[in-house]
């Protein structure tokens, strides 16, 4: 029976269920196609925001910015996440995938939805940005595409859950599910909540665009849309943190410092996200400050706490694993001697640093009720989320891809010498890009804006020269990141379709093996901590974490100070 065919990868020991493997490959490949579309439009959009180049005419710019946002944030990320969900259930648990046929239905719906949406935007009548704020209308096909895509993704989530159930029933693993699968489960639960929110708002909006509903209340739309739009960022975080743990495990054999802490931190994501949409509404009329403060912070800071915990435990687990191998000199020998030439590791580590230092800090700062007044809708905002969703999520997924090319696709990585540099070009390019974008935003440069020189408007405005310089740097660093992204697409496409096959034998059969518990940790003499310092198992990581906190605190106060300089208002 085809549904019972498995193969074991001799290099990694992972076991792939054939139908799951096919679906993972398809979803990952389509994800990269979306990344390519997003990348080409990134090029166009960046060259337009670069003041001295100012390439596209206004209508094209807004159209391609819509294309860029949707293909990147929704299609690239979610197709890849579906592949990750199948991997973390079927592959990691050595289990058959639940209902592969439905997996095809999900995939086809998602592709169809993505195509319809893109066709609608390319027709030129739906340049409404990914947020499609009512009452600015798009064509019905725009919303319909998103709805079909969402239904497909939702089916994918249920297949993941179904696979966990089968794995438990058929006892394909001992004990509890692995931490990485637990992280994926978190992402899946959040995704179900999120996609439902998306349905609640997109279906009426579709009906409105068909003329069946007269009116959709603008603030209500914003509240529910961001219940979808923000929560889905929490899916991304849960998913890329799971990928960080996975890469730490694969590259170093790392094990969580303690299962309890890492798992609780994942649960915090689920528990405190419901109204995270609040911090997109901090300067909206009609909502009380109490509501804003409660939801932006109570919901957020405990979720933020969770990210700060993972930010320590992921590198901490690497440090402990490295120290156990004898890399115990000083605080940072474990880090210096890490495999910086392995793109799976370097990408993951840059993702972690960029996400925390740039994305995390800026996100909390601008999510502060009052500070949002000096940041809302400036280009600071895309600066922030390119740090989270590009350096954090996208780069983490790129790193995982380097691991998956031989293991899942059975191909050798094309141009391995170039692959070594790719995470640095992309990651560092993006770090500079986000920093200068945030700088320009602090000077009041707007997001989604075609002309910061206001050449055509009846009333003009002159930004300071430094704002133009910063936007020029946005252009230059954006180009560097695009080169990094292009190398990634080139390497994956050539490897997957034309690459040299991996020689070793990994043929299909019906034999399966059970996933065993991790062996008990071999405690160095005197316990975990003896390999560290000050009774800490991971002192180097702790120092890095304190450094992070110091920057966080300073930057946070700087922003209050800046806020205090604007007009008094109440």
């Amino acid at each position, binding site marked *: 029976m085809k549904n019972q065919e498995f193969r074991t990868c001799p290099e990694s020991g992972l076991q792939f269920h054939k139908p799951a493997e096919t679906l993972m490959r398809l979803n990952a490949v389509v994800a990269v196609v979306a990344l390519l579309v997003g990348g080409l439009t990134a090029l166009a959009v960046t060259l337009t925001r670069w003041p001295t180049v100012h390439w596209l005419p206004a209508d094209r710019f807004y159209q391609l910015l819509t294309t860029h946002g949707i293909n990147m944030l929704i299609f690239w990320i979610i197709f890849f996440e579906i592949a990750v969900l199948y991997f973390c259930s079927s592959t*990691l648990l050595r289990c058959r995938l639940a209902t592969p046929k439905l997996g095809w239905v999900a995939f086809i719906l998602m592709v169809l939805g993505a195509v319809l949406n893109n066709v609608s935007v390319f027709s030129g009548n739906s340049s409404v940005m990914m947020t499609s704020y009512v009452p600015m209308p798009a064509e019905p096909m725009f919303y319909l595409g998103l709805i079909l895509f969402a239904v497909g993704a939702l089916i994918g989530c249920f297949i993941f859950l179904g696979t966990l159930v089968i794995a438990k029933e058929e006892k394909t693993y001992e004990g509890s599910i692995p931490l990485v699968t637990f992280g994926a489960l978190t992402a899946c639960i959040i995704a179900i909540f999120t996609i439902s929110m998306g349905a609640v708002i997109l279906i009426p909006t579709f009906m409105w665009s068909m003329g069946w509903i007269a009116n959709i209340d603008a603030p209500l739309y914003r509240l529910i849309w961001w219940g979808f739009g923000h929560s889905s960022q929490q899916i991304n975080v849960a998913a890329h943190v799971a990928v960080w743990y996975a890469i730490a495990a694969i590259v170093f054999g790392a094990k969580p410092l303690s299962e309890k802490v890492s798992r609780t931190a994942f649960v915090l994501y689920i528990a405190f996200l419901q109204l995270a949409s609040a911090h997109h509404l901090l300067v909206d009329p*009609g909502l009380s400050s109490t509501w804003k403060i409660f939801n932006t912070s109570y919901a957020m*800071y405990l979720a933020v706490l969770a990210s700060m915990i993972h930010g320590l435990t992921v590198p901490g687990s690497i440090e402990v694993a490295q120290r156990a191998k004898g890399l115990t000199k000083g605080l940072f020998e474990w880090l210096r001697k890490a495999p910086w030439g392995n793109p799976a590791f370097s990408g993951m580590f840059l993702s972690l640093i960029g996400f925390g230092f740039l994305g995390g800090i800026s996100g909390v700062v601008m999510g502060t009720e009052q500070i949002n007044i000096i940041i809302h809708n400036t280009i600071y905002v895309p600066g922030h989320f390119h740090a989270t969703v590009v350096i954090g999520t996208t780069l983490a997924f790129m790193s995982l891809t380097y691991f998956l090319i031989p293991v899942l696709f059975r191909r050798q990585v094309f141009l391995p010498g170039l692959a070594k540099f790719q995470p640095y070009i992309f990651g560092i390019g993006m770090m500079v890009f986000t920093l200068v974008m945030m700088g320009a935003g602090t000077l009041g440069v707007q997001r989604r804006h075609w002309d910061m020189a206001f050449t055509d*408007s009846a009333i003009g405005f002159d930004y300071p020269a430094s704002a133009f310089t910063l936007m020029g740097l946005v252009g230059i660093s954006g180009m560097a990141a695009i080169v990094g992204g292009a190398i990634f697409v080139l390497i994956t496409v050539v490897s997957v379709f034309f690459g040299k096959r991996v020689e070793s034998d990994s043929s299909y059969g019906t034999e399966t093996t059970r996933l065993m518990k991790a062996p*008990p940790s071999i405690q160095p003499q005197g316990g975990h901590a003896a390999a560290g310092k000050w009774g800490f198992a991971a002192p180097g990581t702790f120092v890095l974490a304190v450094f992070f906190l110091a920057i966080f605190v300073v930057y946070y106060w700087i922003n209050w100070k800046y*806020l205090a300089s604007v*007009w008094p208002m109440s």
Partner: protein
Amino acid sequence: MTSIQPPSETIWWKQPLDRVEGTWIALALVWSLIMFIMMPLWHVYGKQNLSNEAYRTTPEAFMAKTQAMVDQYTVRTETNQNMPVVHPPPGSDVYLIGRLWQWWPLLELEKGQTYRLHISSMDWQHGFSVQPVNINTQILPGYEMVLTITPDTSGDQTIICNEYCGIGHHNMVGKIYITEGGS
């Protein structure tokens, strides 16, 4: 012994925390609480807070109120579209319309005086961004937002739309002239 395998201890939730984790969680939690408290504190001691005063309205009703103010307080017109510039008395209610693609009318306010600025949209969503002072809020159709502001800087300010509102979005620019008090 890795994160992609089931935990080695079946009862993993009884495993003690590592000291490095406990210390970091305590630090991070304290910082989270400080950040939380800052927001209510700023409502008490800080000067920049949104009152969140807002009313439901309609484009017609809001237009009527704005027109009344324009009729009463216009001091001159500017640009080739003859945009009125209004100079309402300090302390009064000032109305500003956002529509495709202009801010109407232009305003002239006195430095150091307080005004109740009402803003609404006639059509789509807009963003009220005052530059270079850098104040940004969201403007929605059907809702009238009231900001009580005290311009305390010299120099004219420009209102830029910073919510994407279609093809003329980047041309949607308005003005707040600031005159020195007492003049």
